[in-house]
Structure formats: structure tokens, C-alpha cells
């Protein structure tokens, strides 16, 4: 009964979305206020209905209602409760339902807090948002209905893929979707602005928080996925340039570009048409990401549900929205007249460089990801594009970005004098050089990755600090706390990028690995740590059987940690997983993996010492935190867009 209720709510939501995409749009062009304003209750109703539908599916999973095909295929009575809930979106149908739920949530949020938007803009934004919704409701209802019943309900389900039964991965998809779908708001605003033929600072002030929020969620989502890969896949890699990872990374890069270019529109009324184009592209790439994951055109470790028919449907949605958006852009972009003027050497110029680097690096990821498909279509060549390519083709852009970032961040608007902008950065430059020398000295004979990666990281952190100090002017450090939150957000996010650089650089260069047959109570040494295998036991988990080892780690005779690496077998899916045991530290992780019993006695064991590993995710947290601080800036809290803000005074230097 509850499932049918959810099914019906979903159909109603589809109907409301169709209403919401047509009526307010007509109202806006005819100037009928009643028609326009009906978008707001429609958006709220659409969200309410989708939420009911999602709740119904969640109830089915929580109560293990195996008469639903989806629940039977992805759940099991013995599964812990948290994974019964995360199982709702741990499959194709449920995850698409989550996708439209978040889409409706964003639409409802825009309707609820958009009271002071111009009525025509609000009506058009909500109508465009609803049209995206309608397309995905149709996709769900016609190709991926989660509410299908089974004729004869089985006694128990087939369980969720064990790899997905993990805290990191349980919350990875919702965050990614918040990011992907958040970009749909930027898209809707861009399309609405193109229809209106008007882009100004107030518009940018509306788009920026949505983009910032989307980017922040994408950052968290990607970091969760990467962290999961680190501890779950058993060799401690953190990024694989897998097509599905790239699918989330491209929108992230473009969202980062968009939130920077929107600053220029907001403060200086320049780069308008480029910002519109970026907004269309960023959401376009979110949908390309969905297409890559859902269609299975590009094989990947992660794609748990792929189906050509669904792929074609999503390709259609992608073509209509991106193609339509770009066509509209081509027709109307000429009407966006820029107002602000600036010299190439200025904050605006630096942000243009930022956009060039981020957009081109997203392009490199795109070409690399799609190349195997393209080569097969064009020349019938079956080839692969993997990490070695991306490391070579992508990294140079990030190096240039990191070198340029502190210079650009400290420059004044309109016109900068390079020598003056350099002055506050002299100290950071000197200290960075010292840090690079130090890293070079302790890592002789090893690759340049440590020196460049960590050196640039130090440069980014010190540069951000210098920027903050510089902003206090002559009034001393006591003003630091009274700086606008936007300044703090910027500094924290940029420093976070630096922390991630340090983590990636030092982990890649300094990691040590040991593979051996370990015998019980016979210690062995890995970069200064004595590791001893004490025991290996069979342990019964709630829905798996585990081979659990107990291993002591000591340094200079003092015990550092006792770790329990496991390998599990989930009998329902007959699938093994590794659960590495990690001793987390600020400066190093100790990472142990247990393998098979060996014929001659003993166990295969892999041990790693991974320096600065946690800095990678710490940096991501800082980036997201920076976004959050920036989002709480006064100018967004005080009636955003209600009146044209006075242009912020530009320092006289």
C-alpha cells in the first residue's frame, strides 16, 4: 500500500512539474502576475510530493518489503539499519529518486526564500527548474521505476553490494547529488537571464550562493569518495582518474570557475556572457556525469547500474537542455553588455586566468575520459586512457594555478601594479623557498613531486595568510577578526587547497610499502616501525564472515597501536572485501592489509607508511569550510538582491 502511495505521489509530482514549467513561463511573458506567482506554491507542492514518494521508498527498505523488486534486489534483512537506509540510494532507481528529490528541494528553496527576486525572473527560474525536474520524472517513471512489485515476494533479498556497505560511501551520493543538482540552479538562473535579456550585479548575487553551495557539496562528496577508496580498496590510493570520478570532477572544476567568474559579475559587471556560458556548461557536465555513470558507455569500477536504454534517455535530456541552453545563449548573449573596465594586470585579469586554467583543465579531463569511446567510433581502436595520461596532461595546469593564485588573490580590482602587489608576498615567497629547500634536503634521491607539490602547498597557505594580513591595512592585526567573512572564506578555501597539495605531494613521494609473508609473533620493520602479527581469527559479522588479524605496531620499542585488518566475505553476494586497518596520525598513517594464509605457514601482509595522507582530506574539509564561511557573508544574509548594492570601494593603491 505504502509503495503504491509513493508511486502515486511521484506521478502527481510529475504533473505538478509540467504545470510549473509551462504556466509561470507564459505568465512571465504576458505579464500576468497570478500565473507567475503560481510557480511558488507549485514548487513547494512538487517538493512535498517527491519527499512523500522518497519517504515511501525508504519505509519499504527499512521494513524490508521484498514485494518491491528494488528492495529485493538491493537489501537483506540481516543488513544493519544504516545500510538499509543508504540502500535506498545505493542503486540506480533509488538514486535517481534522490536526484529529483534534491532538484525539487532546490526549487522549493528558491521559491521560499526568493521573495525579493523580480517576479518575472523568479517565475522563469522556477519554470526552468521544473522543466529539468519534469525530464527526470519522466526518466524515472518510464525507464527506472523504483516502485515495481514482484508477483511472488521472496523470503529474503539479494543484499546491497558489500562495497557500498560503508559509512564513507553511504553518504557519498547524497553530497554529490546536492552538488550536481545545486548547479541546476545556476543553470536555471542563466536560462532565465537569457530569456529576460538582462544580467547585472543583483543577478550574480543570486547565482553565486547557489554555485558556492553546489561547489561545497561537490567538494565534500568527492572527498568522501576519495577517502572511501583510500581505506576500502586495499592499497591506499586516493584518486584513480576513473571515468566515474572524472564525471564528478569536471563539474567541480567548472563550478569552481563559475563561482570565481560570478564574483567579477557581482563586483564589476564584467564577464557576464562568459559567466552565463559557464553556468550552462557546469550543469551540462553534471548531466554528462550522470550519463557516463548510468549508461555504461565507459566501463568503470564504480558503475553499479548501467543500461543502454537509460543511457539514450539521459543523452536525450542532456541534448535538449545543454543544446537548448547553448542555442539560446548563441542567440541572446550579444545583448549582455559589459560595464566594468579593467587592465589585464588586475583582480579581474587574475580571475580570467583562473577561469582559463580551470576550464581548460576540465576540458583535458573531458577529452581524456571520452577518448576511448571516440577512438573506437572513429578508428575502431580499442584503447585506454588512465592515470599516467592524466597525471601528465592535467597536473601542469594545477601547478600554474597554484603559482599564480596568491598573486591574483592579493591584486586590487581594475588596475594593479605588479611590484606593489608583490610587496606583501615577499615573506611568503622567502619562506616557501626555505620550505622547498628543506623538503629537497630530507628527500634526496626521490622525485620532484614532493618539492613541487608541498612547496606549492606551503606557498598557497602562506599567501592566503599574507592576503588576510594585507587586508587589515595599517590598522593592525586586531582588525583581522572584523574582516568580511568573504575574505576569511577565500583565505580558508585557498589555504585548504594548499593543504591538499601538501598531502598529495608528500604522500605520493614519500610513501613506503612492504609486501611479505608474516609469521605469528615474528616482528618485521617498515620505515622505523616494528610490526608484529599476533593472531588471525575467524569472526562472524552481522551479514559477513571476517578473517581478522591482530597486529602490533611499535616504534623504538614502544607500542604505537594495535590494529585489526580484516578481509570479509559477504555470503549473499559471494563477494570478498578488504578492510584495511589504519592508524591515523597528523604526519603519517600506518596502513595494514591482511591477505591469504600461505602454504608454508604465515600470512600474506601488506604494510604501508603513508606520510601526510590525512592532509588530502583535511584540505578538502578546509575548502568546504571556506565555502561555508563565504556563504555566511553579510551581503548574502542581508536581503540578497533586494536593492542594488553600492559598489564596494576599491582601495586607492
Amino acid at each position, binding site marked *: 500500500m505504502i509503495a503504491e502511495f509513493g508511486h502515486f505521489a511521484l506521478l502527481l509530482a510529475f504533473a505538478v512539474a509540467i504545470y510549473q514549467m509551462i504556466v509561470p513561463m507564459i505568465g512571465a511573458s504576458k505579464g500576468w502576475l497570478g500565473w507567475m506567482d503560481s510557480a511558488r506554491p507549485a514548487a513547494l507542492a512538487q517538493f512535498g510530493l517527491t519527499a512523500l514518494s522518497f519517504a515511501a521508498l525508504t519505509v519499504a527498505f527499512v521494513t524490508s518489503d521484498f514485494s518491491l523488486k528494488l528492495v529485493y534486489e538491493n537489501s537483506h534483512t540481516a543488513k544493519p539499519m544504516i545500510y538499509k537506509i543508504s540502500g535506498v540510494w545505493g542503486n540506480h532507481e533509488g538514486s535517481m529518486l534522490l536526484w529529483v528529490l534534491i532538484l525539487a528541494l532546490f526549487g522549493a528553496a528558491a521559491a521560499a526564500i526568493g521573495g525579493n527576486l523580480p517576479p518575472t525572473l523568479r517565475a522563469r527560474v522556477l519554470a526552468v527548474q521544473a522543466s529539468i525536474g519534469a525530464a527526470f520524472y519522466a526518466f524515472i517513471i518510464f525507464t527506472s521505476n523504483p516502485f515495481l512489485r514482484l508477483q511472488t515476494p521472496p523470503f529474503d533479498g539479494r543484499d546491497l553490494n558489500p562495497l557500498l556497505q560503508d559509512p564513507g560511501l553511504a553518504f557519498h551520493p547524497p553530497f554529490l547529488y546536492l552538488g550536481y543538482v545545486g548547479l541546476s540552479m545556476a543553470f536555471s538562473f542563466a536560462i532565465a537571464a537569457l530569456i529576460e535579456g538582462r544580467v547585472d550585479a543583483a543577478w550574480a548575487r543570486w547565482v553565486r550562493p547557489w554555485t558556492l553551495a553546489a561547489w561545497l557539496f561537490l567538494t565534500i562528496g568527492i572527498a568522501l569518495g576519495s577517502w572511501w577508496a583510500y581505506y576500502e*580498496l*586495499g*592499497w591506499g*590510493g586516493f584518486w584513480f582518474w*576513473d*571515468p566515474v570520478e572524472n564525471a564528478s570532477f569536471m563539474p567541480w572544476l567548472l563550478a569552481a570557475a563559475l563561482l570565481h567568474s560570478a564574483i567579477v559579475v557581482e563586483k564589476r559587471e*564584467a564577464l557576464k556572457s562568459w559567466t552565463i556560458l559557464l553556468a550552462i556548461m557546469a550543469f551540462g557536465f553534471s548531466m554528462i556525469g550522470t550519463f557516463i555513470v548510468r549508461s*555504461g558507455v565507459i*566501463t*568503470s*569500477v564504480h*558503475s553499479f547500474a548501467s543500461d543502454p536504454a537509460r543511457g539514450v534517455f539521459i543523452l536525450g535530456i542532456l541534448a535538449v537542455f545543454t543544446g537548448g541552453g547553448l542555442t539560446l545563449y548563441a542567440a541572446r548573449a550579444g545583448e549582455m553588455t*559589459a560595464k*566594468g*573596465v*579593467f*587592465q*589585464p594586470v588586475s583582480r*579581474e585579469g587574475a580571475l*580570467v*586566468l583562473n*577561469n*582559463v586554467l580551470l*576550464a*581548460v*583543465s576540465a*576540458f*583535458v579531463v573531458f*577529452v*581524456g575520459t571520452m*577518448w576511448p569511446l571516440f*577512438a573506437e567510433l*572513429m*578508428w575502431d*581502436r*580499442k*584503447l*585506454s*586512457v*588512465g*592515470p*599516467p*595520461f592524466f597525471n*601528465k*596532461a592535467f597536473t601542469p*595546469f594545477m601547478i600554474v594555478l597554484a603559482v599564480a593564485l596568491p598573486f591574483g588573490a592579493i591584486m586590487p580590482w581594475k588596475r594593479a601594479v605588479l611590484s606593489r602587489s608583490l610587496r606583501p608576498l615577499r615573506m611568503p615567497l622567502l619562506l616557501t623557498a626555505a620550505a622547498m629547500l628543506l623538503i629537497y634536503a630530507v628527500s634526496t634521491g626521490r622525485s620532484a613531486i614532493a618539492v613541487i607539490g608541498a612547496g606549492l602547498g606551503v606557498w598557497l597557505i602562506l599567501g592566503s595568510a599574507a592576503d588576510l594580513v594585507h587586508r587589515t591595512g595599517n590598522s593592525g592585526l586586531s582588525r583581522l577578526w572584523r574582516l568580511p567573512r568573504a575574505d576569511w572564506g577565500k583565505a580558508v578555501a585557498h589555504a585548504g587547497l594548499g593543504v591538499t597539495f601538501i598531502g598529495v605531494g608528500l604522500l605520493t613521494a614519500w610513501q613506503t610499502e612492504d*609486501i*611479505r*609473508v608474516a609469521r605469528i609473533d615474528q616482528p618485521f620493520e617498515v620505515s622505523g616501525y616494528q610490526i608484529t602479527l599476533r593472531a588471525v581469527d575467524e569472526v562472524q559479522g552481522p551479514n559477513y564472515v571476517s578473517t581478522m588479524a591482530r597486529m602490533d605496531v611499535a616504534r623504538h620499542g614502544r607500542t604505537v597501536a594495535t590494529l585489526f585488518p580484516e578481509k570479509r566475505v559477504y555470503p549473499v553476494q*559471494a*563477494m*570478498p*572485501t*578488504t578492510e584495511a586497518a589504519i592508524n591515523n596520525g597528523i604526519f603519517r598513517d600506518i596502513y595494514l*592489509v591482511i*591477505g*591469504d594464509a*600461505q602454504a608454508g605457514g604465515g600470512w*600474506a601482509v*601488506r604494510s604501508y607508511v603513508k606520510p601526510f595522507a590525512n592532509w588530502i582530506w583535511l584540505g578538502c574539509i578546509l575548502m568546504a569550510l571556506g565555502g561555508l564561511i563565504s556563504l555566511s557573508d553579510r551581503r548574502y544574509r542581508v536581503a540578497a538582491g533586494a536593492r542594488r548594492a553600492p559598489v564596494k570601494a576599491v582601495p586607492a593603491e
Partner: protein
Amino acid sequence: MKRLALILTLLMTMPMSVLAVQPDEVLSDAGLEARARQISQKLRCPVCQGENIDESNAAISRDLRLYVRERLVEGDDNDEVIDAVVDRFGEFVLFEPRATGGNVILWLAGPLMALIALIVAWRFMRNRAQVVSPRAQLTEDEQKRLDELMRD
């Protein structure tokens, strides 16, 4: 076909261990072993979904890892080993595609795009900067008048 590949993958990975490189594969010569690892990370497991043979648990990956080590012990250099594997399995196993034929476009796409973007951005910024100069907004007569005034 895809389903078959999936079934094959499952069959090959399931009964195997959860460790990729096994202790018995490791060469005693640390230098050769390091080179073997380096090569393994560039070669794609032919039956898995996007894993290199160094990380993969599939049986064929183990065979390939052993083969790579065998060749290294016999004195081949890195390129010869990779060539030998490519001869057998095709360029599909290369994670770093060779810059031959159409692949040149792949390698040049990034740098070319960067160049074009920089040129476009630079010309755009020159335009934005020129608007600022008040001279551009003066008509010819005004300019003449200004020059006269300046001369005095």
C-alpha cells in the same frame, strides 16, 4: 558480450585473494622490483573494469605481473617489456596511450586549448582595457581642440 565480461571478471576475482601483488611474486632485486611495479601501474588489467595489473586481483593480472618480472630478470628494458605485453593484448592494456595516429590529438588537446583560451582571453582583456582610455571616446574635433589647448 558485456555480461560475459562481467561474469568472467567475477569468476576470476572471486576465489582469488584480496591482495594484488603476492609476496611470492616480489623479486629479490629491489631495483628490478621497483621497475616492475612502475611498469605494472601503467598496464591495464585486460578483464577488469579500469584497474591496473598492480592493483588488480584477477588471475590474468597475476600472470602478467609474473611475465613482466620474468622479462625484466632476462634483461629487457622497460619499453621492451611494455611492447611485448602490447603485442599480445593490443593497445587496450596501455593506460598511457601512445601519441601515434589520431592519439596525437588527445595529447595536444590540452596545450592547444590552453593556447587558444589564453589568446582569446588576452584579446578580450586588451579590449576591456582600451575602453578605459578617455582618448578613445573623443571625436576627432574634440581631440584637435584638446591638442590645441595642451599646446598653450
